């Protein structure tokens, strides 16, 4: 039998991680990838909050004399074809991308959870109605919605967020419903009924927390993918309107024309998008693991 170092095993189990910070530090080193994700996310959030402070130029200011400048001390990430500073645009773009990501995910996931939970837990006619609603929402392709909304209401940040959020609803709702269907039959739900809990409270306190794992995975995946969706919408000309710098449009518009001649126009927004998506997903997985009571520690 291999010798076992009790101390290191205990440390791995987090035995001496006490107090808020101790526990945090312990979790951080147990979930290296998750920590990386968290750091990335925090970085982007801070960037978004302090965009005005960090950015060095007006992201909208056109300068024909310094167009397509390569990265330099003056323009860290170079300038685009309008001579706008890419660094400043990416910094301000963080606001938009995060607004889209967080806005539409929150909206879509919240509504999705409500619909999914109600439909799975209450079943009966509620399920019937909500199922039809999700079917209908699912049947309208994202781009039909996006096109209709931009055409009817004009392209704007709230409209884009709404257009992206709507297709999330059936996705989340279906996953939550599937989970709820199984959970509904669990004896602990019956136990909760037996102590006279209202259906609402059972759904929220007993059923919902047990769907948290897929919900977190899904929500963080969606957080990332909404950023990508905005990029795709931009690619199709339906994203956040000019001149606001959205990463998606920065990438999609430069991708074709400048990938060889001015690669920084493609690389930096590309990295920003990928990092943000990557970060949220890594963090999501770690969060899921941490919230799982059956994990060690």
């Amino acid at each position, binding site marked *: 039998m291999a010798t076992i170092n009790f101390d290191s095993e205990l440390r791995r189990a987090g035995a001496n991680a006490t107090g808020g910070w101790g526990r945090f530090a312990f979790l951080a080193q147990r979930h290296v990838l998750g920590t990386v994700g968290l750091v990335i996310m925090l970085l982007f959030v801070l960037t978004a909050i302090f965009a005005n402070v960090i950015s060095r130029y007006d992201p909208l200011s*056109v300068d024909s*004399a310094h167009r397509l400048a390569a990265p330099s001390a003056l323009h860290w990430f170079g300038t685009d074809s309008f*001579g706008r500073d890419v660094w400043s645009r990416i910094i301000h773009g963080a606001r938009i991308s995060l607004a889209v990501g967080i806005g539409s995910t929150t909206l879509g996931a919240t509504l999705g959870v409500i619909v999914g939970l109600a439909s799975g837990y209450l079943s009966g006619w509620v399920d019937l109605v909500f199922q039809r609603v999700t079917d209908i929402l699912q049947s309208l392709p994202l781009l039909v919605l996006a096109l209709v909304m931009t*055409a009817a209401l004009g392209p704007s940040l709230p409209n884009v967020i709404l257009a992206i959020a709507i297709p999330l609803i059936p996705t989340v709702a279906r996953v939550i419903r599937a989970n709820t269907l199984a959970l509904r039959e669990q004896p602990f739900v019956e136990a909760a009924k037996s102590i006279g809990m209202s259906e609402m409270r059972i759904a929220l306190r007993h059923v919902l927390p047990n769907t948290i794992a897929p919900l977190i995975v899904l929500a963080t995946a969606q957080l990332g993918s909404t950023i990508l969706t905005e990029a795709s919408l931009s690619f199709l000309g339906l994203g956040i309107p000019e*001149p606001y710098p959205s990463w998606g449009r920065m990438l999609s518009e430069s991708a074709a024309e400048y990938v060889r*001649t001015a690669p920084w126009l493609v690389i930096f927004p590309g990295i920003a998008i990928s990092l943000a998506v990557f970060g949220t997903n890594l963090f999501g997985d770690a969060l899921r693991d941490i919230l799982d009571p059956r994990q060690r520690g």
Partner: protein
Amino acid sequence: AEPKSGGIFRIYHRDSPGSASIHEGATYSLNVPFMPIFNNLVIFDQHIAQNSASTIRPELAESWAWSGDNKTLTFKLRKDVKWHDGKPFTAADVKCTFDMLMGKSQQKFRQNPRKSWYEQVEEVTTNGDYEASFKLKRPQPALLSLLASGYSPVYPCHVSPAEMRTKPVGTGPFKFVEFKANESIKLTKNPDYFKKGLPYLDGIEFTIIPNRSTAILGFVSGKFDMTFPTEVSIPLLKDVKSQAPNAVCVVEPNNVSTNIIINSTAPPFDNLDIRRALALALDRKAFIQIMFEGQGDIGGTMEPAPDGLWAMPKDMLEQIPGYGPDIEKNREEARKLMQKAGYGPDKHLQIKVSTRNIAVYRDPAIILIDQIKSIYIDAELDVVDTAQWFPKIARKDYSLGLNLTGNAVDEPDQSFYENYACGSERNYTNYCNKEIEKLFDQQSEETNTDKRKKLVWEIDKKLQEDVARPIIFHARTGTCWQPYVKNVTIMSNSSYNGYRYEDVWLDK
């Protein structure tokens, strides 16, 4: 080398045209794939880049002649021409076509965007099967140029307009095979083409690829023999050349001006001072630098020289406010005008710049917004959906709009009447100046080219000074083809006329 017969000419197409009927369309997305199906009475020489009255060649007509009063234009027609369905071509077809264009016939087009071209035509008459005459209300020498445009094919009488939209029948070098929306357009050689030995190609195939990156990659990888004509932007051109060094690429102006439409019926631009200030604030070089890496042209309504035939001389141009070389001085003046109108550093004017959600519209709008910041105008971009653009403009529901005006023929009659005549449908700004109107007619009737030029310059200058529709710049675009493609010429003062492709051949 001697031309070789055979081969399919493969071109990508930038988008899916709405129909196959050139007369019912107003975009060269239609002309490029469908011009090879048709013939005109006359056509601009397909191998001379600069279209002009002197490059007009007979096609279905063997010859043409003006009457003494310059009010009748008579064409003698070829007798050996057959429609693709085998029916013979006669003068009746000519009459049918133009009657329909003038809205005089029983059958109607779904839409008829160039009806105004034939405003001065009283009637079209035939004399036997092989002669047709255009009777004019007043002399209009430019008519011939209009008839030589790619926009003026002759349609068969016996085919309904609806059929022409889906299965066009022509007399041209190529026959229509199929048009799959969003997928491809296929043409095949017309073996009975009246020009013996032509065409050289066995067929032409357009693959519709709306995504430019994919399309360019397709060209670079050799899947296509030619890019869609005049669709390669200057930055992309560099890219193509770096990846396909053998490709032949040309950059030509295409007689499309980027301009600002101003709503002068409502505040704030009902104030001439503010309009003038706006004109003075423009840094046209910056636009050209950003949009075309310097390869664009500054001018008035008419396409600038040397490719344009009617452009004002440089010194005349620079006298127009805002065209002067010293931008700062201009803007200083503009600020003064703004202050006069009650705006200043502490009181900025808030407006919206409306434009369409297409890069060639949006990009200049962004630059415009940035430039007018210098004269106390804070503008916001208002991107308008295609379906709403013209209704919105027609409702006068905008203050500034960024617009593109393409000219099918480098011909003052076409530009002036279409865009600046009182009551013209495309006079979006409702600019109406009876005096200038008279000058329009005067130059139109003028048969002496030099005299006519002077008149045209004068009109153009006046239009700019009135800030009727400030012209920002004239675009240039690129076209590339593989080295083995021969006999392709890209026109340098229009992008609607050069796609007959009857003598294009592949040196493979």
